[in-house]
């Protein structure tokens, strides 16, 4: 078990290194010059050249990359080209908002998705099943910006139940979390339904029924725990996805998360921030999967090594 963990950890580090290298090369190849963007329209060529030199952009790519890695090992993500602040502190300032949104979004989608999935599975082939599956289809295919703007206009602008944008109180999180949750719930509902449908035909479920247990108890005690595995794996993936910033939802609701930071940095060709956000979200994806891999055997003895 330990050996497997160490091996997974090692490959996770390699993945991160690969992400850093690929992002670095891609940003370098991008046809936009950060020095020109900083210098603005009235700068003389000397000023542009000086800025390029001060940022180290006149060095060969490989040197720039090794410098970046050397600093990274020291925990230094560098300074923003445009804002001049430490990238690590800029990301740290946004992290709480992103974590809160991630956590709330996952709670809503798991609770909503699992409930709907169970309802659909228990009513397989009936009207309720078709309704739930139809809704989940809309959920998985609706674009984020449509749903978030719809919620914003109906529940915030017209009904006035929630603030239109911002961060700080419980009311602020409701609409963004609901947007993410409703959209994500579709996936969970479909997954839970198909896992349950399979489990419900198993012998032990029939045995449980034969013992005289009610349908609900059978599902909650015997069937659902066995259908949990894919949900855990999916949450692992979602952690990564939400950490990379849910750009659209953050933008619509003025949520001060990592996505907004990344979006602004891309517009301004602020390479250190883009690198930093990419690495942090890659780290989150790797860690999310890693956690799912550790948790799975704890829940399901069948896949213990």
């Amino acid at each position, binding site marked *: 078990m330990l050996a497997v963990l160490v091996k997974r950890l090692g490959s996770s580090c390699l993945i991160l290194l690969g992400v850093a290298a690929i992002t670095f090369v891609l940003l370098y190849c991008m046809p936009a010059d950060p020095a020109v963007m900083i210098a*603005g329209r009235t700068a*003389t060529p000397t000023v542009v050249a000086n800025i390029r030199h001060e940022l180290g952009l006149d060095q060969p790519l490989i040197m720039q990359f090794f410098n970046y890695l050397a600093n990274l090992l020291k925990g230094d993500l560098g300074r923003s080209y445009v804002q001049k602040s430490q990238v690590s502190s800029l990301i740290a300032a946004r992290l709480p908002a992103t974590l809160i949104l991630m956590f709330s979004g996952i709670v809503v989608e798991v609770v909503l998705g699992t409930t709907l999935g169970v309802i659909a599975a228990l009513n397989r082939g009936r009207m309720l099943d078709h309704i739930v599956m139809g809704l989940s289809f809309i959920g998985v295919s609706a674009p984020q910006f449509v749903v978030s703007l719809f919620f914003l*206009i109906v529940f915030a602008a017209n009904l006035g139940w929630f603030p239109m944008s911002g961060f700080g109180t419980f009311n602020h999180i409701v609409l963004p979390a609901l947007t993410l949750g409703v959209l994500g719930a579709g996936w969970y509902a479909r997954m839970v339904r198909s896992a349950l449908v399979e489990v419900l035909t198993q012998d032990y479920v029939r045995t449980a029924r034969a013992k005289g247990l009610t349908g609900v108890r059978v599902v909650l005690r015997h069937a659902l725990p066995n259908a949990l595995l894919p949900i855990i794996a999916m949450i692992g993936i979602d952690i990564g996805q939400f950490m990379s910033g849910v750009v659209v939802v*953050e933008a619509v609701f*003025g949520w001060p998360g990592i996505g907004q930071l990344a979006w602004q940095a891309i517009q301004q060709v602020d390479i250190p921030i883009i690198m930093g956000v990419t690495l942090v979200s890659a780290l989150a994806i790797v860690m999310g999967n890693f956690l799912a891999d550790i948790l799975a055997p704890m829940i399901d003895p069948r896949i213990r090594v």
Partner: protein
Amino acid sequence: MKKVLLCATILGGMFALAPQNANAAGDIIVTYKDDVTTLDPAIGYDLVNWPLIKSVFMRLMDNKPGTAELVPSLAESFTISPDGMTYTFKIRNGVKFSNGRAVVASDVKYSIERAVDPKTQGPGGGFFNAIKGYDDLVGGKAANLSGIQATDDHTVVFTLTRPDATFMQVMAISFSSVVPKEAVEAAGADFGKKPVGSGAFTLKEWTSGQRLVFARNPDYFTPGVPNLDSITIEIGQEPLVAMLRLQKGEIDVAGDGIPPAKYAEMKASPDAADMLVEGNQYQTSYITMNTKVKPFDNVKVRQAVNMVINKQRVVQLLNGRATVANQILPPIMPGYDKQFGGYAYDVEKAKALLAEAGFKDGFETVLYATNTDPQPRIAQAIQQDLAAIGIKAEVRALAQANVIAAGGTEGEAPMIWSGGMAWVADFPDPTTFYGTILSCGGAVKGGWNWSWYCNPDNDKLATAADSMSDPAKASERAAAWSKIYANVMAEAPWVPVINELKVVAKSKRMAGSPDFYIDPVRIFNYDAISVK
């Protein structure tokens, strides 16, 4: 007993303060999409931080609110030597930084040297290139500008290497803001997040990605300025959401303006008169034609293109938020020539010119534009106009940074539509539209002369015009610039298309002259606006 006394003192103090604040009541909320990048005056150079920096810091000179007129600010008075090479400023007594220290002449010297020093990585150094010692500091041969001397605490003397007609304007731009050395050194590169100035407002709070709060500086040198008690800048607000909030009265100014989709509705609403302010700005949107790319190396081709652009339709695409342009300078700029006719719309004449140039059947080319609405739609309109004379232009809509990079790469972008690349002139002087965007010096890699147009004769005339620093010769100088731009238009490296109007959406309770909201130099004058 001590406690009671203390309470009495505090209460007494509060009552004593109350009447002073009565005429200055007001806390307002302004929203922006992007976080404010920096408040460091040596670095900040966008339309959001520029007006904020101007309100947090003082400069020797400033502009009268809502106008382009120069007035002494940190300077109490000044003298200019007859040859226009030496400027002596007397510094106002009793002006203090928000850390409590008095502002002295050596702070002015330090601040401008810092703006020029390459290590600061600031964009504004070039504005000061007429000051003696500029080349040595930029080239790393000196640590100071020998052309700035603080002769005593209240006198600072600038020595120039050539007369510079824009020098006094430069003393009023944000890069000339005066900063205290000790605060800059204590904060290091984070000075932009912890600014210490002597302006009308001081920064009280900055929560990254969420808000900035500015409070009025009670020690500001002009009594009664600013009118507001505080300004809260809320960050991360989508323009459309900001407009909804503005209509509900939750915020006071939607900083990013009105999205195209919302403009018609706003304009037609009964609140428009109270909530919309429109005005001219120092801005021209244009199409560049790359004189180093065939067939735009042929002046007849460039002139032909000038005759087929339906500018009125571009105005319509902007919901009427623009006026048609026929020359490079915007109408409110000195040097704008009212008599100038430009190229009239004439498809037949354009066809004839193209035929003369050897392109009877037109040609294929590429038109670059930024990818944010409505710019791609405008580029498509231009594409249709070009098709009328057989020019098949492929529209390439990219992120702003990529368009700028393509423009600054020799032989890369045949045509660029400049709209949406937010830029207005830094100060009201005709030279601002020439320097880096039409001169030979700007036609370099990473430069902004996207036409790669270079006429050394015009460059000579421009240098001569900018040397006429005697204020008495202002009209002669403006005429000289009119001539230069007429020369440029004859060679037609651009199609000047429109002058965009600035439109600000504000809450009904906001008061003060409309000019304060569309301030031509400050962009937005936080010092002068007020609440009803």
